[in-house]
């Protein structure tokens, strides 16, 4: 995939998504539902009206942050499949920190902003630290990070689930949830009147992406990160310690996952619930990143697409009896097709499209 041009990558992304949707439509038809109605539902559910658009942008916000977290790791040749776990740990840290600090700070807008900032810092630290574990294990014990990060996802969900059920359950809560954040700790509602979405959250996500793009594209750290992913020998030759680079990359990626967790906790939930019920933003982020060819800026449009798909899923689950899990399956198919660019190259050659390989 590294030898593909930007245009080819875009073509592969579009073709993968189109093909996955087509397979989805076939499944819809084969299971006795109306594929045309499905398509209409997808469009209405994602951008049909301002409610749908706000919902799409809500999912997009989280996907942008989790997606860029995955992308920086993949760029450096490190497979961080643990964004989901880092996201959970970060979000939980945000809620706990804000709940702890709230009594010590003034209420109102000033206190709210200060608490949100401190909560986000806590998420960044927690997410980074949690991601550093598989980084250290890979660098110094040669443990495959794909498997350790997946195991750490299970462990994060289990431990945080245990904590919100027992020690951190809000007083008098029947459900296994923490206490709610104070009223004044929330992002302002601008443009869209949706309790779970704020344009400020989206702005935070986009600014984060721009910063990451700058770090990856314009700084020494970013240069080392990309070269250690593409040409390990060259990176080592220019004085980069590959072990330290792996740890740094994982930590950086986990910090971004932490930001995603903080935005999710503050903007969407307002408390923390059992993470086994939280949507798998960290896994879908892998699809987002792959579709964006692991380019930080490319993550934004890819997130919009997946935000739209998830939003359509919410719409379908209310307005149709078609099982919404179909959307997850389609996302999996997108990943499968993105993994095999050769498939499209061969297909394109057969129909006489595109330039010669090599």
């Amino acid at each position, binding site marked *: 995939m590294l030898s593909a041009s930007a245009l080819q990558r875009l073509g592969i992304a579009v073709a993968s998504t189109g093909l996955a949707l087509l397979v989805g439509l076939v499944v819809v038809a084969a299971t006795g539902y109306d594929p045309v109605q499905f398509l209409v539902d997808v469009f209405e559910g994602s951008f049909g009206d301002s409610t749908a658009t706000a919902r799409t942008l809500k999912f997009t916000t989280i996907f942008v942050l989790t997606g860029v977290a995955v992308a920086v790791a993949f760029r450096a040749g490190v497979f961080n499949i643990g964004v989901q776990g880092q996201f959970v740990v970060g979000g939980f840290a945000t809620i706990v920190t804000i709940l702890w600090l709230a009594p010590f700070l003034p209420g109102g807008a000033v206190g709210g902003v200060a608490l949100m900032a401190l909560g986000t810092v806590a998420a960044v630290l927690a997410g980074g630290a949690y991601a550093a574990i598989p980084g250290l294990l890979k660098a110094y014990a040669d443990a495959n990070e794909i498997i350790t990060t997946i195991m750490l996802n299970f462990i994060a969900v289990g431990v945080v689930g245990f904590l919100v059920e027992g020690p951190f359950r809000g007083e008098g809560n029947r459900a296994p949830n923490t206490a709610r954040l104070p009223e004044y700790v929330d992002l302002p509602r601008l443009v869209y009147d949706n309790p779970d979405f704020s344009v400020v959250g989206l702005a935070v996500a986009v600014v984060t992406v721009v910063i990451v793009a700058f770090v990856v594209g314009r700084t020494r750290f970013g240069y080392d990160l990309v070269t250690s992913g593409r040409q390990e020998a060259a990176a080592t030759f220019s004085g980069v310690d590959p072990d330290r680079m792996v740890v740094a990359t994982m930590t950086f990626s986990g910090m971004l996952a932490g930001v995603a967790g903080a935005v999710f906790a503050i903007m969407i939930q307002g408390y923390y619930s059992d993470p086994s019920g939280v949507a798998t933003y960290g896994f879908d982020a892998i699809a987002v990143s792959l579709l964006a060819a692991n380019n930080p800026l490319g993550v934004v449009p890819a997130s919009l697409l997946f935000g739209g798909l998830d939003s359509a899923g919410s719409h379908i689950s209310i307005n149709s009896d078609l099982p919404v899990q*179909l959307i997850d399956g389609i996302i999996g198919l997108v990943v499968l097709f993105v*993994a095999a660019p050769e498939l499209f190259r061969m297909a394109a050659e057969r129909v006489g499209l595109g330039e010669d390989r090599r």
Partner: protein
Amino acid sequence: MSASVGDYVEGNSLRLGGALGVVALAVVAALSLDVPLGEIVTVGFVERSLQAATPIALAAIGGLYAEKSGVFNIGLEGFMIFGAVNTAMLVWLVGGSSPTQGDLAVAMVGAVLVSLVYALVFAVFLIRYQANQIVAGLAVWFIGLGFGPFTAVLLWGNRNSPGLVSVQDVTVPVLADLPVVGPILFDTSPLVLLTAVVAVAAWVVLYRTKYGYWLQAAGENPEALDTAGVDVNRVRYAAVIFSGILAGLAGAVLLAHAGSFTGTGDTMVDGRGWIGIVAYLFGNYNPLGAAAAALLFGGLDMLQIQFQTAGIELPNRLVSLFPYIAVVVVLSVWGSTRMPAAVGEPYESED
């Protein structure tokens, strides 16, 4: 390249010594902390551990074959989800709400055949279209996580199936009455025995037959195998399809032991495919070693029941994390296994 048990012990003395050391340490800790060891290590515990180990062992042996041939099948977890949900679906379609043992057997065979088709498609993606093995394997997992529960919702209107049927224990007369060994080996799930047979057969084929030699050569030195006139990619196709079949069987076995399909969260497979990968790494790519490692993870998985009956106050939710923690520890201590040399590299014949 051939390996006898003696060679295995010699080549893996550190691994075996480490495993023994951990067990010894656990026993010492249990004794010194006054844990009722007798109530934890019971015949029932061994039986349950063997049952819990079977799906992990089957998936591990399949994954090991694929990797030995030079293809990293990281999609085991996904194939297991499909194996489980398809078995549940077929049981329901064949036997309705009160299926028999025969219906279960038919469903398991059917689900394994479906797995064969999926694995064939996956193999074409990996070998013909040279898909990124890691990304494609993850994709299989995601597709399983989506379409597994999707199938359940279509059939039962719920991500979980109703209670269907679980496999009955087979009791061998007379032998079953032997103390300890009797209930563990001669009064147990036939699928445990099947897994033992598969593990031994996989070992024999891998180390004692021409096919096993080809398989190892395809992963270690594909050029040499090609020169010897054997089609490398054909060997790899066979290995990947075999791994998909075994992972599908692993999912079917999981369902047959549980009796119903669970599609919430990470589904009933719940990471066992990933643990299978670690099991064969820990077993150093040896089918028997992989099965033994699976037993270790299966035992950890079943500890929560033992803790409860022994009255040990540990939150269930934390005890259930033991296998995952063990995987991280095992991988950190014995992470640097020597992979077959050509894993992950597509092979293109020069002619």
